[in-house]
């Protein structure tokens, strides 16, 4: 065929089993979700076993590890707390990311039902469902995360570029210049050799 004539004939057909093994991404409308389910209480158990050592018993985070719950209404604060509940727009992302990349250091070891249960527990930890809730491929679309409408597509061309284009000032651009902040006061830069900051 004419299309084939334009190709190099390199590579070979991907088999359905191979595509199924690697193509696991889940889209906001739920496309890609496997059949399965998990409830909050099961999720609490799995979470305690697999996740809580870093993310805390209540998904509140341990030390510097990410907090998965809390922070509702803080996005406009000086120090916003961005979690699944306060920030993430789509539940699909939570399912997809936990399924593919968690637990940290032991990824791709969870069964689909375990992932459903963990995600149900994360929803519960964010006060978004009650403790009876069962998340499944069928109930998935009932959940709309609070910050679903919190994102706009990059608008820098209109809001920034339009005003920062043109010949810039070269002479007498300011009356006076004062130092307002100094990194050496904070002093958090590693030493030569990079060994200290403890």
């Amino acid at each position, binding site marked *: 065929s004419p*299309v084939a004539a334009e*190709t190099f004939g*390199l*590579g*070979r*057909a991907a088999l359905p089993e*191979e*595509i199924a093994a*690697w*193509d696991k*991404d*889940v*889209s*906001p409308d739920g496309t890609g979700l496997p059949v399965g389910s998990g409830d909050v209480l099961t999720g609490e158990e799995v979470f305690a076993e697999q996740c809580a050592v870093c993310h805390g018993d209540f998904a509140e985070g341990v030390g*510097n590890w990410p907090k998965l719950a809390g922070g509702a209404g803080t*996005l*406009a604060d*000086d120090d*916003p707390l961005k979690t699944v509940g306060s920030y993430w727009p*789509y539940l*699909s992302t939570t399912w*997809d*990311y936990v399924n593919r*990349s968690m637990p*940290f*250091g032991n*990824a*791709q070891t969870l069964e689909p039902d375990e992932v459903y249960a963990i995600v149900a527990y994360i929803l519960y930890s964010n006060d978004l469902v009650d403790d009876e809730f069962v998340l499944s491929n069928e109930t998935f679309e009932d959940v709309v995360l609070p910050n679903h409408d*919190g*994102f*706009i*597509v*990059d608008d*820098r061309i209109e*809001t920034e570029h339009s005003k*920062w*284009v*043109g010949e*810039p000032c070269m*002479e*007498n*651009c*300011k009356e*006076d*210049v*004062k*130092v*307002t*902040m*100094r*990194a*050496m006061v*904070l*002093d*958090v*830069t*590693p030493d030569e050799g*990079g060994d200290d*900051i*403890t």
Partner: protein
Amino acid sequence: MTQKTTGNSRRAFLKGAALSGVSLAAGKASAATPDPLITEVQPWASGLGDGVDETPYGLPIQYESDVVRRNVEWLTADTISSINFTPIHALDGTITPQGCAFERHHSGAIELKKEDYRLMINGLVDRPLVFTYADLERFPRENHVYFCECAANTGMEWAGAQLNGAQFTHGMIHNMEYTGVPLRTLLEEAGYDTAGKWVYVEGADASSNGRSIPMEKALDDVLVAFKANGEALRKEHGYPVRLVVPGWEGNMWVKWIRRIEVTDAPVESREETSKYTDTLEDGTSRKWTWEMDAKSVVTSPSPQSPITHGKGPLVITGLAWSGRGAITRVDVSKDGGKTWETARLAKPGEKMALTRFYLDTDWDGEEMMLQSRAMDDTGYVQPTKSQLREVRGLNSIYHNNCIQTWLVRSSGEAENVEVS
């Protein structure tokens, strides 16, 4: 965040100044006494150096041991999903040596040999395909130089002057000559469907780092690269194959790339929702902020590269780049932005690649507030941090391309500061 109160930077500076005293004496135009480095036969002028079998693959000479990647422990929870920094304060020209080019991993630098490597194309294509590494080397190749800048470069500086050195404030960047196959070629090989408006790309590592890229960009200039600066990619940079996405934020340069899926909509993965979205002052956030805007920094003098030679001729140098095109001009100010001089570009700016600038000057030994200001071929002028904050507030985390100020004291010591 841990704070320390000892004057490490000052100690380092004094050490540097002491060393330079030697070279200063030797470098005088007239000397009172003959220089023994000239009048006495030195060992290297009499004995023998290393044989050609000494170093099959060489490293820099030991005296350059400070030109290395550096980690800042307090930035991340561990060193696996973390960042390190290119020593841009000590480099010149534009090509980054791969061995000290920054790393950013989300589940560590994996070891993936060519024999085990597979690349899949699936989704909205006529022919879902699997390629081996050897297959990829049989497609027609291209060579291009591009910068890869982490979206978070300079991100710690949003709230104020924090880290004292160009390596730390601007070193999440490298610039290499890539060899690879246009992504377009591979998409055509699979016969992409015109209903496919996006490609979703993911890596072979545990984090996967999946990102959605609009088809227009995928068909334009994205490369599936297997060589950088003439040789195979380094393990930590995606060996054996990575994506090169010219001008766009480093996160999208998926390493160890294993799969390309043609889709009708973006996946909205973790790395384009939770991360790499930019929160504005009112609490809404920008998504899909792909391009890296025009930016520059003076690399020397700078906090890690103080002036140690006293007054007189001084080379002020730095880097400029833009994700939207080529750098056309860089201005330098010595007085915190009151007056500006146009610097000399070492070569005409190339699209979406680092550009080196120089301002050859005569330093009178007075304090300077050094700044650089890049312009690109769209006419965009690099903004100040105040201008950026007016639009975005303080919590964007990513895409901080503000003008940097170094306070250079009469001692030659330099410090990261903010100015009014």
